[in-house]
C-alpha cells in the first residue's frame, strides 16, 4: 500500500503531467484515509495557484 512519502511524490507530479489511471487511484485511496496528505495536496495546489498570480496581487514593502 502507498505511504505518505510516495503519495507526496504523486501530489507534486500531477502538476507536471497527467497521472496514470493506476497512480490516480492509488493517490485517491491514500488521500481518502490520510488527513495530513489531504492538507499537503491542498498546499501544493495553493502554491501552484499562488505562483500563477505572483507579482499581481503581491505588494513588496519598499
Amino acid at each position: 500500500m502507498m505511504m505518505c512519502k510516495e503519495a507526496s511524490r504523486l501530489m507534486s507530479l500531477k502538476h507536471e503531467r497527467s497521472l496514470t489511471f493506476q497512480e490516480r487511484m492509488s493517490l485517491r485511496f491514500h488521500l481518502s484515509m490520510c488527513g495530513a496528505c489531504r492538507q499537503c495536496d491542498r498546499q501544493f495546489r495553493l502554491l501552484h495557484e499562488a505562483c500563477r498570480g505572483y507579482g499581481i496581487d503581491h505588494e513588496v514593502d519598499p
Partner: protein
Amino acid sequence: MEDPAASGGDRLAKQRSIRLERLSSIRPKLVSFARMHLRDNAMAEDAVQEALMAAIEKDATFAGRSGYDTWVFGILKYKILDIMRYQKRQGRLQPLDDEESDEVIDRQFRKNGRWEAHSRPASWGDPDAVIESQHFWRVFDACMIALPENTARVFSLRELMGLSTEEICGLLEIRESNCWVILHRARLRLRQCIEKGWLEGETA
C-alpha cells in the same frame, strides 16, 4: 467624467505620467522577481531596466485588457528568459548540477514512509484568504530565498514563469525525471518553510 476641454494630447500625456509613476512603484517587485531567477543583482537590475524601457516604448501597444502590472511582468519574464537563453548559447549558463540529495525528502518522512511529526502538514485555512494575505507573501519570499539555488531556479521556471518541464530540461540540460524530483523537493521544502513561518506569524 471626460473633460471636453482637454485635448487628446493632454489626456495621453496625463495617462503616460500615471504609468511612469506606476512603473517606479512596482520596480522593487520587479527587481526581486528578476533576482530570484537570475540570482545576480547586477543582471537583475539590467533585466528590469530593459523591461521598463520596453514598457515605456511599447506603451501604445498596452491594450488594457489585462492589468498594467501583469503586462509589465510579462515583458520582464521574456527579458529574463532571453538572458538565460543567451547565456546558454554562449555556454555561460551553468548546466544544472543537482547539489541536493534526497536527504531533504527523507528527513520529512519516517522509515515507514509516513510523515515525521515535525513535518506533518497542518491546515493553512481558507486558500483565498491565504493568497490575499501580505504576511503569506512575505513568508513565501523568505522561503524562496532559503531554497538551494538550483531548486529555486527550477521551481521558479516551472511555477512563476510557467515553462513546461520539457522546456526547463532543454534550458538546464537535465532529464525530465530529475526535474520532477527537484520540483517535488522544492514543494516539500516550501510547504514546510511556509507552514512554519505562517503559523508562527499568525500567533505572534
